[in-house]
C-alpha cells in the first residue's frame, strides 16, 4: 500500500477515535463502585446497574421510551411507506409541494420544530401527553422512512406494477402483493431508524413531555441538571448498546437483502 493512503487511513482512524471516545468513556465509568462520577474508575462492580434497575423513576422513563419509540415506529412506517410510494409513482397536482412539506422537518432545526410543537400541542391541550410525544417524534422520523423507501423504489422496476395491473390486479393488490414485499427491507431499515431516533431524541421530548411522560433522555437531561446522578453512565452505556444492536441488525438485514437480489 502506498504511504499516502496509509497516512490517510491513520488520520481517518484518529479522527474517528476522537469522535467516538466520549461515548466509550462512559462504559468503564458505568462499572464504577462509587456514588460519584469518577474517571478513570478505581473499582469495578455492577452496583450502578442495580441502582438503575431498582430506581422506579428510571424504570418508568425506560418503559415510556420503549412505548413512545414503538408507537413512533409504527406511525412513521404506516405514514412514510405509502407516502413515499405515492410521491415516487403517482402523478398528481401538488406532488412536489407535498414532498417538500413531508421532508421539511429534516431541514428545519429541531429546536424550531420543538418550539412549534410545544405551542401547537399546548393550544390543543395535548401538551405533556404520550400522544404528543409520538406525534412529535413521528414528524421527525417520517422523512427518514420516506427517504429510505424512495431510494429503494428507484431500484424497483415500475413495469412490475404495470404488469400486475395488466394481469387484473387493482391498486391495493398491486401495493400489497408487489410493492410492499419488495419494499420490506427498506421498511425494516426505516423502522429501525425511526425507533432509534425516537429513543434517543431529547429536544422535542423535553418540550412536549410532562411530569409522568418523560422519556429516558429527558430524565437523563434533568438528572444532569439537578443531581449529576452516578447512574447516568449506565444509561448512556445502555443507550449506546441499544444503538449498536439496532444498527448491526439493520446492516445484517440489508446485506441479506442484497444477497437475495
Amino acid at each position, binding site marked *: 500500500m502506498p504511504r499516502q493512503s496509509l497516512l490517510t487511513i491513520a488520520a481517518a482512524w484518529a479522527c474517528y477515535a476522537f469522535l467516538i471516545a466520549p461515548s466509550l468513556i462512559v462504559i468503564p465509568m458505568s462499572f464504577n463502585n462509587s456514588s460519584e462520577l469518577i474517571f478513570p474508575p478505581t473499582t469495578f462492580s455492577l452496583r450502578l446497574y442495580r441502582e438503575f434497575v431498582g430506581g422506579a423513576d428510571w424504570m418508568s422513563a425506560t418503559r415510556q421510551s420503549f412505548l413512545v419509540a414503538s408507537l413512533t415506529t409504527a406511525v412513521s412506517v404506516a405514514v412514510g411507506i405509502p407516502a413515499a410510494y405515492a410521491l415516487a409513482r403517482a402523478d398528481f397536482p401538488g406532488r412536489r409541494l407535498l414532498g417538500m412539506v413531508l421532508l421539511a422537518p429534516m431541514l428545519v432545526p429541531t429546536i424550531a420544530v420543538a418550539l412549534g410543537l410545544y405551542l401547537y400541542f399546548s393550544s390543543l391541550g395535548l401538551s405533556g401527553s404520550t400522544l404528543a410525544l409520538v406525534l412529535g417524534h413521528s414528524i421527525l422520523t417520517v422523512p427518514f422512512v420516506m427517504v429510505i423507501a424512495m431510494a429503494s423504489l428507484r431500484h424497483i*422496476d415500475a*413495469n*412490475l406494477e*404495470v*404488469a*400486475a*395491473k*395488466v*394481469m*387484473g*390486479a*387493482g391498486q391495493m*393488490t398491486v401495493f400489497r*402483493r*408487489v410493492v410492499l*414485499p*419488495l419494499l420490506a427491507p427498506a421498511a425494516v431499515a426505516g423502522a429501525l431508524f425511526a425507533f432509534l431516533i425516537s429513543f434517543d431524541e431529547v429536544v422535542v421530548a423535553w418540550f412536549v413531555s410532562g411530569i409522568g411522560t418523560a422519556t429516558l433522555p429527558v430524565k437523563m437531561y434533568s438528572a444532569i441538571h439537578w443531581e449529576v446522578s452516578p447512574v447516568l453512565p449506565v444509561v448512556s452505556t445502555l443507550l449506546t448498546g441499544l444503538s449498536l444492536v439496532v444498527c448491526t441488525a439493520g446492516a445484517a438485514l440489508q446485506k441479506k437483502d442484497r444477497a437475495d*437480489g
Partner: protein
Amino acid sequence: MADAMVRLERCAKHYGAAQALFETDLSVAAGEFVTLLGPSGSGKTTILNLIAGTVMPTAGRVHIEGRDVTGMPVEKRGLGMVFQNYALMPHMTVFENVAFPLRVRRVPEAEIRRRVGEVLDLVRLPGLAARKPRQLSGGQQQRVALARCIVYNPPLILMDEPLGALDKKLREQMQLEIRRLHAALGVTMIYVTHDQEEALTMSDRIVLLNHGRIEQAGTPDEIYFRPRTVFAAGFLGDSSMLDATVSASGAPGRVTLSDGSALAAARCDLPAGARAKAILRPENVSLLRDAGTGHDAAVEGRLIDSIVLGSVVKHHVEIAGGTVIAQELNRRDRAAVRPGDRVRVGWRAEDLLVLAAPD
C-alpha cells in the same frame, strides 16, 4: 369491421409538444398475429400502451371486442402483456408468478395448481416451478413471462419486443414457439419489434410505423414485394436505390438515370418528370457473366466489392444513379471477379420498383 378484436379510431397521443402518435386508425381481427414494426421512437410502444390502457390517448377512441374501452382502467381490460424485460416478480417463485393472475381472479387453489402445471408444460418449462426468476436463464424467464400471460386465457396478448434481450439463436427458437402458441390457443397477438426479419417470419400482417404514423400495413409479402414508400422498401429487406427521373408514366413505365440511360419498369405510378427512386432487391439482380438472357435491363458498372455471406455472395456494383447489389449463390466454381472490374448487372422490368423520392 364487426369482429375486430381491437380497433383504434383516430387515436393520437402527444406528450406536451412531442407527438408520439399522429391520428391513427388500426383494426386487428380476432385470431390475427399483427406485428407493429418500425424504428425506435416510431410509436410502436405507444400504440401497444393505448390498447393496454397504460397510456390514455389525447384524441380518439379505443375499442376492444366491440366495446369502447377508452376510459377503462388497465386492470379491467383483461388483456395479456409480455414485456421486454419480462417484468417477473423477483420475490415470487416461478409458480407464484404464473399463479398471480389466477390468485387475483380468486381461482380455487386446486385449479390454480392444475392450470399452472399445464401452462408450464405448454411453454416447455416443467420442473422449475420452485425457482426464483433470477435463477433462470433469459430464455427460461421469457417462457415464464409467456406462461404467466396465457394462464388466464386473455383473448388478446400484447408483446413489446419480448425477444429483444435474447441472442439470435434463442430468438429464432422463441419466434417459432410464439407462433406455435398463437396457433394452438387461437388468441389474437399484437407483437412489437424493430427487427424486420422477425416481423416477416412471424406475422399474418405487418403494420409498418415511421415517426408516429402508419407507413404501410399489409401481409409480409405485400410489404416486402410491394412497398409503397421508399421508407418501407428500405426498412424491409435489402434494397438498392438509384436516383432517377420518371420519363414515362403508366404500365409499362420508364425512368432515366443521371447518365441518360433509360430503365424499363413494369409499372410507374408517378407522373413523367417526377424525381424518383428506382429500387431493386439484391436477389432480383444478377451479375451477368455472359450474354445472359431473361433480363430486361443490362447495365454496365464498376465492381466495388464482393461480400461473401456464407451461402450467398453480394456484389456491390456502382452504376449511374447509385450502387446496385447483385446477389448470387456462393458456389465453389463461380468465376472470380475483382474490385475495379467492369461488370454488367441485369434484372427483369417487373422487379424494378419506382417510388417517389422523399423530400
